[in-house]
Every structure is written in C-alpha cells, then in structure tokens.
C-alpha cells in the first residue's frame, strides 16, 4: 500500500514494538490486481516445478515413459558420457583375437586379478579362447553347479545386493531408495507397442545337456506324465503318445577346435522330437501345476493373489564371475520386453548413488508364470557388459548403435512373445537350472 504512515506510528517516544503494532493496525489494506504478465510467469513457474521435481517417471508427447536422471553431480557427469559407444568400443576391443602364445598368460592373469576358478571351466585349454570376450563368456563343466532342491535357486554366480518384499509397487534399490515396478517391467497401455511373436524352433529345447538330463530324470520319475499331457492337450487317451525316454548323451560333448561348444544334437531322433518336446512341456507344466486358465492372467506383477506377496532379489555379477545365467525355477516365459536405456555401471557404488539405476539401464524383462503366480527375470546390462543374450531368442539385439538423437527415451520398450515355443503352455517352458543366456563384454 502507499498510504501515509499514521501519526501514532511516528511518535518516536513510543517503543518500537508499539509503533509497529500501531502501523499494522492503522494501515488499511487495499488490494490491487496483479498484472497479467506476473500471473503468467507464476503459472510457468508452477508448471516447471511440477514437471521437474514431481514424478520420476512421466510420459512424453508420444506416450513413452521417460525416466529422470537423479543423483549427485558425479551421476550427471556420467550421464553426459557416451556410455553406449564406450561399451561398444569395449566390446570390440575385447573381441580382437589374441596371439595364441599370449592367451594362457593373459587369461591366467585376468583370473588371478578377478578371482576366476579355472578348475571349473569346461575348456581348460586356454589357448582355445580366442579373445577376452570369448573367455569372459566361458562355459562351466557339467556338475560344478549342482541345483538345489528348493523352489528358487540362484540364476547366476554373484553377490546378493538386496532382496525383500515389494510394497506399493515400488522396489527398493538400496535402503531408502526405491524405483517403480511398473517402470522397471513396463506396463501395457493403449500406446504400448504391439508384440512380435518370436519363432522358436522346437529343437531348441534340446540344446542344453543339463536340461536333457533333468527332463529325462523327471520324466522317468513322474508316472502320470502321459495323463497330464492328455489333460493339457484336451484329448482323452494318450496311448498314441507314449513317451520313450530319449537316450542321454553318454559322454561330455567335446569342444570344437574353435574353443566354442556347438549344440550336441547327435542324440536327437527326428521322429521323436515333437512328442519329446510335448513331453518336456508337459513335464514342466506338471511340475508347475500350470492350468490353461493361468495363461489368461496378465503377466504383470500388479494382480497378486490373496495370501501372496511380490518379492524381489538383486544379484550382482562381478567382472570375474561366470556370466551366463540359468533358470531360477521351473517356469514359463511368456514374453520379453527389451528396454533400450543407458549403460551405467550397476556396481553397488552406483546403486547407492543413482536413483532409478535399474530403470534407466538397458535390460531385458522376461515375464511369465511359475507355480505361485507371476514370475519375472530381468538381466540388466552395464557399461562393460552391455550385450544380453537369450538362448531361445535369436531375434533379440541389445546394445545396438543408436544415434544420440534417435535414441529411444528410457522407459520405452519393444515386446515379443514366446507363444510359438509351446502352444500348450503359451510360452517357453524352462526347467530349474536350465541355461537361459548370458552377458557378453560390450
């Protein structure tokens, strides 16, 4: 206001507080309209604050989810680096063929530094590994990783970073820092991309020797398998589908001269492959208690049955660890969602500092069901291991070159379904301990 100060407030002989009180009481309040520009500026400021300090995940103009980079200044410096290009360069360098004379020395030194146990690797002739990338993606000898008899086993060698129960559809990254489960696994909405059906040759069920042994053992032990198969197929008698157990390999497949193992298919009888595959599917279904109705349930973690809870566990693979991952239980993978994101390091150091780390990084969410309901397994890439391979999904391409401008925003994904793998189960059945894929350098 511009009113003159009242006389009582001017009296210097009075204490200050009395003069202030008098001024407050005697000054009349007059309201003036704000100029339009000030109001517009205020609205802009409110909108800016809402957009930049509100949700960590929001939708862009195309309906894609965009995740914000949050963390201390080091995180923003890292975010400004071309991590994907660095990762690809790292992969290229590690794919270069090393001189044969250098390989044993180099790989032993690497093993010493990173704690690899060379007694466990399948091909102990180190000269057979052409590059560090080849050695990094090494196989292990059969039997060195026995599968426990519990309902859930570790899918990889590594360190348990965190685990627990998911509440309010938020997963705890580290103590006190959470990220959205929907952003992590993706949600279906009208703007979601349509799914691609991945063709999975039936013979791919047989590409793992461990898997073969398990299937045959299960089959031999479960007397009611034909009955289950009949139920699942909707046919009455299954006499014509009598299963003849396949011959198990009598010896460990020897590695090829290149040092990489080719799938052993010498034991396959083409005339039995279909029924054997059906039997395999039925075996998994029998173990899981899968019913066709279950397939109708959505593959999201949000519709949890009564008396159930959503749980999570994070396993970190250090550079020297065996980098293939296996099925942690008997389950059916129904779809995969490939999120093309960043490639930050996923070390415990970064996990403590970068919010939404697992939502920002490139990852492959494999979604499906197990005997207790929803089951999801998500390999998350990192700077040094940006390539994720899924054995039964040859169409998957990770850590591809994207120009910075055409790079899809974090949170967007492409989806594919595995229904062709088994029409009976609506997905790719996996036995506990079966090799699923792995991480490659770069």
């Amino acid at each position, binding site marked *: 206001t511009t009113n003159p100060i009242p006389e009582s407030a001017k009296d210097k002989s009075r204490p200050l507080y009395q003069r202030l009180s008098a001024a407050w009481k005697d000054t009349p309040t007059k309201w003036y309209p704000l100029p339009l520009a000030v109001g517009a500026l205020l609205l802009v400021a409110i909108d800016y604050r809402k957009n930049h300090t509100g949700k960590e995940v929001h939708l862009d103009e195309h309906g894609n989810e965009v995740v914000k980079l949050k963390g201390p200044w080091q995180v923003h410096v890292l975010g400004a680096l071309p991590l994907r290009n660095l990762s690809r360069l790292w992969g290229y360098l590690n794919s270069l063929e090393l001189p044969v004379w250098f390989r044993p020395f180099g790989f032993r030194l690497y093993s010493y530094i990173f704690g690899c146990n060379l007694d466990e690797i399948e091909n102990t002739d180190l000269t057979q590994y052409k590059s560090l990338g080849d050695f990094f993606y090494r196989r292990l000898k059969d039997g060195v990783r026995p599968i426990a008899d519990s309902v859930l*086993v570790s899918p990889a060698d*590594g360190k348990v*970073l965190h685990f627990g129960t998911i509440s309010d559809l938020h997963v705890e990254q580290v103590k006190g820092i959470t990220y959205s489960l929907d952003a992590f*696994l993706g949600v279906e909405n009208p703007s979601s991309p349509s799914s691609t059906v991945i063709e999975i040759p039936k013979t791919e069920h047989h590409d793992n020797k461990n898997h073969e042994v398990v299937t045959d053992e299960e089959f031999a032990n479960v007397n009611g398998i034909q009955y289950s198969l009949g139920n699942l197929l909707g046919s009455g008698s299954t006499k014509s589908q009598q299963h003849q157990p396949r011959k198990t390999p009598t010896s460990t497949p020897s590695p090829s001269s290149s040092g990489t193992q080719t799938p052993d298919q010498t034991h396959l009888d083409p005339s039995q492959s279909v029924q054997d595959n059906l039997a395999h599917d039925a075996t998994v279904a029998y173990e899981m208690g899968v019913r066709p109705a279950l397939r109708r349930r959505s593959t999201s973690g949000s519709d949890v049955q009564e008396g159930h809870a959503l749980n999570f566990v994070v396993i970190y693979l250090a550079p020297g660890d065996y980098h293939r*991952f296996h099925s*942690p239980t008997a389950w059916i993978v129904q779809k995969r969602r490939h999120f093309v994101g960043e490639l930050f390091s996923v070390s415990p150091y970064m996990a403590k500092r970068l919010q939404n780390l697992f939502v920002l990084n490139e990852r492959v969410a494999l979604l499906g069901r197990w005997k207790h309901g929803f089951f999801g397994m998500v390999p*998350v890439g990192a700077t040094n291991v940006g390539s994720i391979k899924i054995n039964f999904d040859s169409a998957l391409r990770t850590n591809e070159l994207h120009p910075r401008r055409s790079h899809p925003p974090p949170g967007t994904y492409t989806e594919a379904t595995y229904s062709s793998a088994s029409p009976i189960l609506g997905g790719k059945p996996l036995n506990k301990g079966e090799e699923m894929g792995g*991480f490659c350098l770069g």
Partner: protein
Amino acid sequence: STVVLVFEAPLSFEFKVGAGQKVKVGEVLGDVKEDVK
C-alpha cells in the same frame, strides 16, 4: 551386470540368503514353508 528377479510367492516364502552374500548358480535363494498338517 545384474540379474533381478521379481516374483509372486505365498506369504510363507522365505529368503535363505543374506544381503552381501555370494551365491553360485543353483544355490538356494529361497523356499516356501510347507504347512504341516
């Protein structure tokens, strides 16, 4: 690299590991307590 598992399980599910523990493929992560009738 990291593998994250997200799964639905009965309330009786218990993790059999501790944070920071090293695990290997096939080792127990958790199990469901069966009701004893």
